[in-house]
């Protein structure tokens, strides 16, 4: 192994680190995997939300591995909600606070309501509840979808947000069929944004970009009304790589243009950091092979599979009017394409 150079890697995080609130509201003693980036997302989320916050979480790793065996790592009040219930738990909690405050049954104050879910519970099963939550402008709430790209807690099965071709417990690679996961990953923040014009804020971020993530969570919590933040979190168990690489894989997914850092604040779409530089043509995307080849879940990929993957990523950057966000490449007003 080549000796590493003594340089500060050119990571977003290094350039933008300011003074973080030191206090942890999600703290040590969670039974998550070594290198679990979803746990890091919980930490960032709690840190930036602060103590006047209520958190509900759906069944999944961030339930079973956190409040594990009748113990808890949460300093914030936290409650379990059912796998498909992130949206409804947020609505129920927020509605109750609103009613009780209006009627003077509890003191009137700003209390953050966050419901988290993952790609399985949120992106598949609970999608209807996310939709309902994004519509109801009466209630202040944030849905945070931590996307570890599988039904992880049940030992890694494919969800609608598992990347194309990845091996999971339900989509193995076999002697007859190399690829058995045929669905291209769905883009939940874009889907919610496109269909819910009353949602106040939608964002996509990554566990590898702590400041970006925290800024987005903070922005969401400061809005009145429904908001949604999705984070892309490497999962060393399900993706099968050495946990040490967690942070770098998260960054690499952005460098490859697979994960896109963007948000939409009241209809204004913005790209951040590396993704912004990529959109502006100032930074070349890394080949996706760099990312895919480092993970056991893609170990079965033939070169043609990598090529296919790359071609889909290229298409979403080169042909879409909103690169990496919405697949619109043609409008009544003429052809699109971000860069001509």
């Amino acid at each position, binding site marked *: *192994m*080549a*000796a*590493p150079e*003594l*340089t*500060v890697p050119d990571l977003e*995080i*290094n350039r933008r*680190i300011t003074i*973080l609130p030191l*206090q*942890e*509201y999600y*703290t*040590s*003693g*969670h*039974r*998550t*995997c*070594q*290198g*679990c*980036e979803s*746990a*890091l997302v919980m*930490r960032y989320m709690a840190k930036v939300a602060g*103590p006047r916050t209520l958190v509900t979480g759906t069944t999944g790793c961030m339930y079973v*591995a956190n409040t*594990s*065996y*009748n*113990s*808890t*790592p*949460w*300093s914030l*009040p*936290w409650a379990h909600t059912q796998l498909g219930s992130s949206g409804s738990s947020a609505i129920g909690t927020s509605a109750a606070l609103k009613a009780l405050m209006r009627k003077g049954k509890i003191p009137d104050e700003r209390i953050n309501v966050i419901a988290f879910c993952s790609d399985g519970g949120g992106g598949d099963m609970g999608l209807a509840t996310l939709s309902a939550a994004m519509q109801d402008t009466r209630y202040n709430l944030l849905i945070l979808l931590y996307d570890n790209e599988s039904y*992880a807690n049940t*030992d*890694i099965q494919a969800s609608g947000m598992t990347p194309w071709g990845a091996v999971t417990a339900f989509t193995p690679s076999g002697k007859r069929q190399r690829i058995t996961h045929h669905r291209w990953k769905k883009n939940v923040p874009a889907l919610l944004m496109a269909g819910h014009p009353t949602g106040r804020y939608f964002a996509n971020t990554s566990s590898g970009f*702590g400041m970006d993530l925290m800024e987005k969570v903070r922005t969401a919590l400061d809005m009145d009304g429904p908001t949604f933040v999705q984070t892309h979190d490497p999962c060393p*168990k*399900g993706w*099968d*790589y*050495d*946990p*040490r*690489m*967690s*942070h*770098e894989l998260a960054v*690499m997914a952005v460098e490859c243009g697979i994960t896109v850092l963007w948000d939409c604040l009241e209809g204004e779409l913005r790209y951040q950091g590396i993704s912004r530089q990529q959109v502006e043509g100032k930074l070349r995307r890394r080949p996706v092979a*760099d990312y895919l080849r480092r993970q*056991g*879940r893609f*170990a079965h990929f033939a070169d043609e599979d990598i090529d296919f993957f790359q071609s889909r990523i290229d298409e979403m950057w080169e042909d879409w009017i909103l690169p990496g966000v919405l697949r619109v490449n043609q409008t009544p007003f003429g052809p699109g394409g971000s860069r001509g």
Partner: protein
Amino acid sequence: MSVGAVDITYRGIFQKNLAGVITKELVKAARHEDKIGGTVQRYGDSPERNGIPAKQFSVIADDADSLRVEMTKYEPSNVVVVAVMDDTLTKGVESWAWYGVRPINLNLAPGGTLLVISRRSAEELLELIPRREYAWNLAILPGEPSFGGLWVYNDDGTDYRTMGAVSRVAGDLVSLDSLLAQAASGQDGELRAEQLREGHDSVRAYPVDAGVGAEDTYEPVEMPGWTQMREGLVIPAVPVGETNPLFKKYTTRTARPLVKFDACVKCQICYTVCPDECFIPTPEGHWDIRYESCCGCGICAQSCPVTGCIEMVDEAVFDSNEPLHGVYENNREEYEELRQDKLAKAGGPIPHYGIF
């Protein structure tokens, strides 16, 4: 023997498939001796998490009734061999909250064998392994821990070497001949046979008398009765500034990050990227590590921008979870000596992956 169990204690996920192969093949081999058996994946370990200590068992019996009794347990009794797939596990295992850190040989039957894959000597290991009130055996199979992934199996022969070693230390449970016969019936029979023999021949066993070994500080937990629990499935949150009192996670660690504070540029990256909230600020702007909470993922070491500033060092050479910045504050040279000493004992740091 009417029934005996082999306990495979391993690192969750990394060695799950390894443990699965060993437990199953041992039972298949025992069939060559007209014995019956089954395997038990300890259900409480599921879902397994990377690195967290887990167990699987082979249960081998002479008669059906003895087997039936064991197959309805989470952890079978009469464990005649505890095979430890990674020697840092000998420091104790905390698989869940509430139960605390349990000795690696907690359930070893009197006279049974603790078989450890290790490069260390019996003396070194006995500094880590708690004493028992009865005599037992320590067996060492020289080697490195074999780590694989959930999807990619590390087929390096550790499975068959371990089985060979088991047949040496518990030949009346399953013999080398049976293992060889079983291996011959499958693929790569010759290679497997070689590995079985290698394990059988290279394992070294040492009798350990009652009372010999490290201090046993383990206290069994007392669980509250139903009238003592809060109703409605409610437990108190962690007071702000504290950590989960019931689960610590440090036995998940095979290596720990050791910081060369003199090299630190105080960039905060380690603190920022740690998923286990281990970093504690010092007045100087360094980041101390609460080892009690550290699971040894290595993200901090991999992400620290200064070469050689955070290094991952074999956990077996440490005997305390105390944060180390205090030593550094007191005397920088002394700290550097300590650091060098640990690195030397560990045979150097675990290599950094380089910057991608």
